[in-house]
């Protein structure tokens, strides 16, 4: 429902997975394959040697600072910033309006999503079929969409919940004069298991 980039989520998981897989496989190879161990030892010591001489050669004038350190710090900073942005991007997409009409000769109509949300919540609050409900508005492909999460009472058929919610939605349609796309999410969860089965049907 939100605008989380799921491809990016999977990419991050995949990259970490491949990294761990490569490190693990490398460690196993070092332990079990004799050739790998020798190759690693020579490779590692020559790499450290190269790094050491390179850092000595690239010292910034009049200091003991090597350019290498600066480069390393910059790279780390870039990675940190990317990851922070990645986390920040999660779960966005809430929207404040259910209707934003194009301006015409008579003016422009805007309807706050709070209006639709509280109208629906209010309408659903007294339904015996629903333990609790929550309404929020998201923007999906530039269209506002109402998401109605309803927790069904134990044993109530999803069809009945849909019927109850849609009755409230149709009343809202009537009120607004437009039909906002609606997603209904019917969940069970702890409160369904704990709630008493309603005897009134």
């Amino acid at each position: 429902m939100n605008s989380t980039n799921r491809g990016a989520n999977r990419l991050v998981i995949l990259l970490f997975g491949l990294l761990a897989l490569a490190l693990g496989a490398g460690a196993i190879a070092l332990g079990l394959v004799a050739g790998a161990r020798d190759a690693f030892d020579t490779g590692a010591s020559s790499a450290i040697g190269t790094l050491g001489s390179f850092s000595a050669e690239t010292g910034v004038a009049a200091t003991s600072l090597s350019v290498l350190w600066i480069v390393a710090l910059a790279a780390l900073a870039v990675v940190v910033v990317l990851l922070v942005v990645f986390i920040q991007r999660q779960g966005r997409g809430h929207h404040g309006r259910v209707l934003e009409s194009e301006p015409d000769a008579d003016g422009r109509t805007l309807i706050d999503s709070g209006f639709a949300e509280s109208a629906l919540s209010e309408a659903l609050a007294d339904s015996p079929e629903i333990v609790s409900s929550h309404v929020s508005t998201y923007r999906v492909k530039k269209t506002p969409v109402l998401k109605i999460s309803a927790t069904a009472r134990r044993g109530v058929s999803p069809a009945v919940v849909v019927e109850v919610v849609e009755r409230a939605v149709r009343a809202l349609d009537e009120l607004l004069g437009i039909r906002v796309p609606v997603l209904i999410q019917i969940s069970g969860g702890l409160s369904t298991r704990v709630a008493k089965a309603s005897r009134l049907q």
Partner: protein
Amino acid sequence: MTYDAPYKRLLRRESHSPRSTLAIVLAIVGIVACLYAATEIVLHLLGVAPLLAAPADIAAAIASISSVETWLLVVAGAVVALIGLWLVIVAIAPGRRARHRLVTERSAVVVDDEVIASALARTASRAALVSPDGVRASVSRRSAVVTMTPRSGQPIDRAAAAEAVQRELDESGLAPTLRSRTTIEKRGVVGA
């Protein structure tokens, strides 16, 4: 006016896991690791004592890792590789949630399997006149299983329950479609 295209997208997103929690946890691990490395570098540049180990010592430790005992290397490698394999699988697997979809004339609907199961249990209990506590139901992607425990000595009308359950599923319009199996426990319970 219908919204078939946005509904399709919505339902697909709602019935698959976004993998957000795991991705965020990994990102935080990455951030902490980077910040630690940066801290050690800065401390080294300032000539202050390192938190755990100076960058050069860390590099030397990694370079001489093959001197660690073989079994330790292999076990640690196996653990890390398994975690990596699991992450790769999680990244690639579809990650379906235990939910079913439904499109009505007005709205798009996602229903937790748990809710469907609970409704089927009640339908079966009504049709077969069994106490609601004597019925268990579970719903997976393609099938629903309803199990009834009879009160000792009282036979259960299995056919009636099975028919009522299947009719409810047929009328529900849930996708993917569900096939039901209604069974009765061989052993009854006294006074259930």
